[in-house]
């Protein structure tokens, strides 16, 4: 138990830093991408129903791009689970 006092291996701090970086970027990135997906979908629905003005094509493009990012994230997540 005396080893508790020993300095923690540098690799642990390195891994922790990597988790903080990868986790922050992917977590916040995914939230932003999905928020834009929801915004694009809400706006295109409003335009289609004549409730608001704006470019339907641009909003659909936003939905497609952010949708691809989100689907890609899910596929990558399942791949990570299988091959971890």
């Amino acid at each position, binding site marked *: 138990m005396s*080893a508790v006092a020993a300095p923690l291996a540098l690799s642990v701090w390195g891994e922790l830093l990597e988790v903080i970086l990868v986790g922050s970027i992917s977590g916040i990135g*995914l*939230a*932003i991408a999905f*928020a834009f997906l*929801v915004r694009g979908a809400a706006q295109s629905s*409003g335009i289609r129903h004549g409730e608001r003005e704006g470019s339907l094509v641009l909003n659909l493009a936003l939905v497609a791009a952010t949708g691809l990012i989100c689907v890609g994230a899910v596929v990558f997540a399942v791949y990570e*689970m299988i091959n971890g």
Partner: protein
Amino acid sequence: MSADVLLVIVVVSALAFDFTNGFHDTANVVATSISTRALPAKLAILIAAVLNFVGAFLSLEVAATIASGIVDSGEITLQIVFAGLVGAIFWNMLTWWLGLPSSSSHALIGGVVGAMLIANGPGAIIGEGLLGKVIVPAVAAPVLAFAVAGISILFIYRIVGRQRPGPVTRGFRLGQIASGSLLALAHGTNDAQKTMGIITLALVAHGSIGGTDPQVPFWVVISSASAIALGTYSGGWRIIRTMGSKIIKMDAAQGFAAQGSGAAVILAATHVGFPLSTTHVISGGVVGAGAAKRLSAVKWGVAGNMAIAWVLTIPAAGLTGGLAFEISDLAGGGTRGPIVVLVLIAILVAAFLRSQRVRTPPPLAEGTA
């Protein structure tokens, strides 16, 4: 014959732990979806149970050792594994009774460390492993999830703030179904493997399978997957209520921020190979998503109780694991020891249930109210 009985006891205890693991951790996956009405409660739990079952089959990279790198693997015996499981199950059931989310993995590690301390002394504990694999991640996980969920919800509100609330809420509810499903799959993959590892270890110690590069028998995979799925399906409602509504009253966007950020952080940790507790991540995410909107929205008393439970997990499970090992050892070890421990547990549980029944007042007879 004696070794066969001990093997059966350890296998049944491992499956019981697996059941409590699923039962206890259901809240991590479904609480936010239920509280924001992304899914009806029964459907959310059914989906979580099925995905936990499927997740158990996704990967079979079983470490074949429990508490690897934390205790001296060469000193682990079936007695120690049994005592460790008793400690972990005790802590899981106690925290469930109190409605507090806590890490099942830490409970198992605590139980094994406690039993190992009594059996072989402090020399068998790898201090650096305990610090690097348990304590540092236990502090880092909730803080990281808190920050990521907090920043995420601020971005989300900024991006969708001026949209009509109806479609936005529907969108985030759909997002919650996807992120919750990912969490359930990840939970099945990670946590069912702990049980598979324990049973495989027991089979190696028993001599049923070879020690060099042991393969997990299919019945072990099926039984572990079924136990965690059944546990999840049973649903630990007390913890679901705490996670879903007692910490913060959340909207769909907050639920998505907590769950989506949590899933991203857990998968980032899996990618790097850094062990993080699902419970710590999701709880930190829920508090972060609430605090970013308004600090006073978080019931800090409940969050504080959770933090106390996390700090106590390893010592309490360790104390119980150590006590179980000591009783088992005093009773003569072998097969007799664990049987004596099981009988004692049965007596204590019966006494507890009886005291609960006595305390519950009888219903008023009709017409007397």
